[in-house]
């Protein structure tokens, strides 16, 4: 799902393509919200999950609220439709054919300036053209005159997309390989373990770079590369836990009753791995977003990410007078998300994993 960033300039030829993309994006949002709602509805009766949820909310209300805020912004930025934005008085004909998200519509269509504007500035910079929206850019504008606040808000979607999309690749892969290695053992385990140790022996960042250079640059490719480099750790955890579960009495009882392997795995092993899935997802997330920032700096990241904004703003620190707002917007947004996710992640691990509970003195 390439982002529908302003200024992409969809020509008439690609119009149909653009329409499809934003429709897909809307459907994905509906599926995510619906899926989460359905999951919550099903789990509401489960004492374990409801208790864990309550405990999490009690321990870390602020961090959860911050994460919720980011998710809301990202979802709002994913719902888009074609049409004149309310404030878009001067919006050109092109704007009518370009899908704009809810976030886009919060800003006037011609909000861009010709060049830099400091936050809430009333005077122009470097003797450029006079400002169209003097004093109305809360975070100023960048060198191309784009509003930094707008770009920063749009970055939330890219960051969450990286985490969610990579997890969609990593979690099934790790579950299939880890459970089959741990449950069947012997040859299956040997093969999976060999693949894991091969992948784990390659330095993470180097492998990531090699994969992206070979696969090409783009959202999908970056997520696939991040998935390939990060599934091994999760797979190892799943394999070890399955080893333990296989020896437990209830699995033995299920086997004695003559249940098929597939049924035992689905009914008795997988549900007992779900807390690991949740913990890994949250702990993996911040690492993925930080990796993308590094990739952006190397020039192989995802368009519109905070990493790219930081990279572009780097040289502007040496200008005189110094242009700091550009860097600050992206950096604070990135920092806020990672911090909130890290705090929530620790709490999730404490709540869901009985082992750490015991070790916490």
């Amino acid at each position, binding site marked *: 799902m390439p982002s529908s960033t302003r200024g992409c300039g969809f020509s008439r030829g690609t119009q149909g393509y653009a329409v499809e993309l934003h429709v897909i994006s809307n459907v994905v949002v509906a599926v995510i919200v619906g899926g989460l709602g359905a999951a919550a509805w099903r789990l509401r009766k489960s004492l374990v999950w409801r208790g864990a949820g309550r405990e999490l909310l009690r321990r870390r209300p602020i961090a959860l609220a911050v994460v919720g805020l980011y998710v809301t912004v990202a979802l709002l930025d994913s719902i888009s439709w074609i049409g004149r934005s309310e404030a878009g008085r001067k919006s050109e004909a092109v704007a009518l054919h370009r899908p704009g998200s809810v976030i886009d519509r919060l800003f006037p269509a011609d909000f861009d300036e010709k060049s830099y504007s400091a936050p809430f500035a009333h005077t122009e910079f470097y003797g450029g053209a006079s400002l169209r929206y003097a004093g109305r850019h809360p975070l100023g504008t960048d060198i191309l005159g784009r509003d930094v606040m707008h770009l920063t808000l749009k970055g939330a979607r890219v960051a969450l997309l990286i985490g969610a999309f990579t997890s969609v690749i990593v979690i099934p892969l790790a579950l299939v390989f880890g459970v089959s290695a741990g449950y069947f053992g012997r040859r299956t385990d040997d093969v999976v373990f060999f693949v894991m140790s091969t992948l784990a*022996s390659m330095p993470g960042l180097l492998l990531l770079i090699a994969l992206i*250079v070979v696969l090409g640059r783009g959202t999908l490719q970056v997520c696939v590369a991040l998935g390939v480099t990060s599934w091994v750790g999760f797979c190892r955890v799943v394999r070890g836990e399955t080893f333990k579960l296989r020896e437990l009495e209830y699995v033995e009882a299920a086997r004695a009753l003559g249940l098929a392997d597939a049924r035992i795995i689905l009914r008795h092993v997988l549900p007992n791995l779900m807390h690991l899935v949740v913990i890994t997802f949250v702990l993996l997330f911040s690492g993925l977003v*930080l990796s993308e920032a*590094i990739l952006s700096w190397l020039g192989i990241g995802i368009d519109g990410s905070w990493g790219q904004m930081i990279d572009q703003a780097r040289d502007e620190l040496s200008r005189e007078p110094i242009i700091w707002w550009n860097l600050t917007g992206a950096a604070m947004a990135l*920092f806020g998300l990672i911090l909130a996710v890290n705090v929530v992640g620790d709490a999730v691990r404490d709540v869901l994993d009985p082992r750490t509970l015991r070790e916490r003195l």
Partner: protein
Amino acid sequence: MLAYLVRRTLYGGATVFGVLVFLFLLFFSVTTPDDIARKAVGEKAPPSVLEQWKANHGYDMPLVWNPRDFMETMLAEHFRRMLTFDFGRSDADDTPIADRLRQGVLPSLSVTLPLFSIGIVLGIGLSLFVAFFRETYIDRAGVFLCVLAMSISMLLYIIGAQYLIGKLFRWVPISGFDSSPAVIARFLALPVLVGVLSGLGSNVRFYRTVFVEETSRDYVRTARAKGCTDTQVMIRHVLRNAMIPILTNVVIAIPFLFTGSILLESFFGIPGLGAITVDAINGNDFATLRTMVYIGSLLFIAGQVLTDVSYALVDPRVRLQ
């Protein structure tokens, strides 16, 4: 014992084989030699130029099967180059890759070695301090600071340090490198500082977990009961016993000292292996890139085999299955 050594080494060799096969799939099947050549000579180059480039860079053999001579394939050539440490020439500027690697190792080590040792000493010291005050406000604040430090992107550490120390205070140069030892310290101060700072959060948190885990053991209670002071318990008993998990963690990281830090080297203009990697990305230099991945994994595998073997030699509790 000997059987264990042989088996462990053979498994290491098998992993190297796996890495080589993976690299072949990635760099010769996913991107074919044609793709690499087209990126080098340009999309619109005539086929003759393309073929010439492939011949010059040794990409002109069949991929896996040659009916005339089965050694004359890309697969065999890939294995031969990697296993004999020949590596061939760079796709971008034709220099022998092995020479560039040899030149890059020292600058890389000059950053990573001080970074690594200072990081360990500082990390262990701070985490001992925090673990000493466990379950107090000092501990809580320490852990929170760690999470805070972990949440800041490495990019921001670099940009911040370059701006504050290099530009505003003008204590040390912003970036650069020199071969004379007297000047080099001034250039290395900033990258080492940034490297230590950015790794400190996760290090302290990890070591603290280890220490706190150790302090709940029985021998700590025994030591207290004997009348040891808290400091004695921490230094003599807890630190010594915690050394095993810490050493494992530290030894694993040693091989990667040689491959350098990609971010630090390119930001601070240090001509090490990390900078070579960045050049390879920008210049579509596939030959150098796959060599770097291979070298990195080779070092890692060798380090792991050595660690396992030395454990088996030293620690009688390790069972040789």
